[in-house]
């Protein structure tokens, strides 16, 4: 790990922001973790509850097998160890959105241990940074508590629909050193988890939640000082996470300058993020340090995870986005940025790209067309890629024509539009549009014609201004719209040269 310390030149000591992220993702199961109520988003309050998730007397939990599978898949994709036995523990605290008075979670034997996520280094395009993980474990979500001061009533309203939804809590090591890295980590995690179909990772919908643990390491006169850790919560977008961390890092430096407080003198605090004012604020001062009194849940049996089951899950993983991103660069010679764009669109787009690239033999052009034309078309029409009417092979054919010089870019766009509207093959489209390839003798004749009619251009070109040819392109197109400007220019220049 490099010793990059920011060196503010405005009289500050060298210091580095240290960030660890705890990310809770909601797993995409149909039913809850310990009961079979639906996990569907957006239902009317308290319509997706049963004795188990309501914590009624006498109710008992039964594990959702799919949640186990999704956790294993995620753990393998994050390079974690999956232990042969995992178990459930009760984490006890009182809160109205937690009807049992305890949350069923995992304490000392989580389903995923260690692991790492490689992220694109925001400071170094083309490089990756490895962010270590401590663990990932399963736990049930709590319900929603809404403070309602409307109509003069002073109550919190509790909706338990969400209570019992399966969460996977992924805990990183404090190995991110900038807000940008934290954001990159979240993006990469979302890319991976959505690729796997494990979670939707939508912060706005609450299927991904982030708590950021932030502090500074300051070097003062050869000594390493650490500021007190602040846990920042309630951010509802990746951008908010980035801003909050930036703000918090700044605030901590100021606080350290003002008070000299260090990690030894002040314990961890919890702050919220106010998106409107763009500030962090104290949420709980010195909360009674929670004693969760963890103990193994006697209503649930431990879960044995035989090696064969893990292996089977590993086989099912397939190529992960990071691998694809690499492969697109090596196999197709794409730049990192371009590979990234394709991979970020998801596996269907990757497959689309590959088919077009193979068919056309022109990966770079394919990438450019995807970024410019395809994505724009999808957006304008509100289409998913699966609804895109142009088959990949056909687009490949089109790009092949451009590559071979038989179609120039601007004509190709017209053909593209035609194909979108009418379907069919490239040949059918060009025929319908009256676009024909201009054969060599036709081109030759046309060049002679143009040169004969424009002696001043010949003079200009011979006088060292090849761009004068441009005037002839327009004329040529008027005579024959099918002419390829590139080919025309080349032929004209050759002829002039030979004069």
């Amino acid at each position: 790990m490099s010793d990059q310390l920011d060196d503010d030149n405005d009289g500050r000591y060298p210091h580095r922001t240290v960030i660890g992220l705890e990310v809770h993702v909601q797993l995409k199961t149909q039913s809850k973790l310990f009961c079979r109520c639906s996990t569907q988003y957006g239902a009317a309050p308290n319509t997706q509850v049963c004795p188990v998730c309501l914590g009624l007397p006498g109710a008992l939990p039964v594990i959702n097998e799919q949640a186990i599978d999704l956790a294993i898949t995620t753990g393998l994709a994050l390079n974690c160890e999956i232990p042969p036995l995992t178990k459930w523990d009760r984490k006890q605290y009182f809160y109205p959105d937690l009807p049992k008075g305890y949350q069923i979670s995992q304490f000392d034997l989580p389903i995923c241990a260690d692991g790492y996520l490689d992220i694109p280094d925001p400071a170094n395009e083309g490089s990756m940074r490895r962010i270590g993980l401590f663990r990932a474990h399963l736990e049930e979500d709590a319900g929603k508590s809404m403070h309602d001061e409307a109509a003069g009533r002073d109550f919190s309203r509790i909706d338990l629909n969400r209570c019992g939804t399966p969460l996977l809590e992924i805990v990183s090591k404090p190995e991110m050193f900038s807000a940008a890295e934290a954001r990159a980590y979240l993006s990469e995690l979302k890319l991976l988890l959505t690729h796997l179909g494990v979670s939707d990772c939508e912060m706005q919908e609450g299927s991904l939640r982030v708590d950021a643990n932030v502090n500074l390491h300051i070097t003062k006169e050869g000594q390493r000082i650490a500021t007190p850790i602040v846990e920042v919560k309630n951010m509802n977008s990746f951008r908010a996470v980035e801003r909050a961390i930036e703000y918090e890092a700044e605030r901590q430096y100021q606080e350290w300058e003002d008070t000299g407080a260090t990690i030894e003198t002040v314990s961890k605090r919890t702050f919220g993020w106010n998106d409107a004012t763009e500030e962090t604020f104290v949420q709980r001062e010195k909360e009674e340090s929670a004693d969760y009194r963890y103990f193994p849940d006697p209503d649930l049996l431990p879960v044995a995870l035989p090696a064969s089951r893990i292996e089977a899950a590993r086989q099912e993983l397939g190529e992960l986005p990071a691998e694809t991103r690499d492969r697109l660069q090596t196999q197709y010679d794409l730049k990192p940025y371009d590979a990234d764009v394709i991979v970020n669109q998801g596996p269907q787009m990757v497959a689309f790209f590959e088919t077009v690239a193979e068919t056309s033999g022109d990966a770079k052009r394919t990438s450019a067309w995807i970024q410019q034309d395809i994505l724009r078309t999808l957006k304008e029409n509100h289409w998913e890629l699966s609804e895109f009417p142009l088959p990949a092979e056909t687009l490949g054919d089109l790009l092949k024509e451009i590559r071979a010089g038989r179609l120039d870019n601007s004509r190709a766009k017209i053909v593209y539009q035609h194909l979108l509207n009418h379907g069919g093959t490239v040949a059918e489209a060009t025929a319908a549009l009256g676009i024909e390839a201009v054969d060599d003798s036709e081109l030759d004749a046309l060049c002679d014609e143009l040169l004969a009619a424009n002696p001043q251009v010949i003079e200009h070109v011979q006088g060292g201004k090849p761009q004068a040819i441009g005037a002839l392109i327009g004329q040529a197109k008027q005579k024959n719209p099918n002419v390829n400007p590139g080919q025309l220019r080349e032929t004209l220049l050759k002829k002039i040269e030979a004069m």
Partner: protein
Amino acid sequence: MAFSDDDIRKLARLARLELTEEEVQTLGPQLERILGFVEQLAELDTEGVEPMTTALDVTNRWAADCVQPSLSREAALANAPLADDECFLVPPVLPPTS
């Protein structure tokens, strides 16, 4: 070990019990006595003995991820001490002001 009244009050807070003064006075000695009794377990050498959380040694009881009908909202709210037509109502989560 001995419990001061303050220890009892802190423990009661952790357990969300609002004990009367009388209860605080009585519980201390009672808990001491009971804990003194159960502490005889310390006589036993349990080095290398696995904790036994349950009498069962079966593992892997789970269910398929299939949605089953939930309770009606009416049934869910039926025993609530206070509710509106959609939600449970509880006092707000505010910090102490004194």
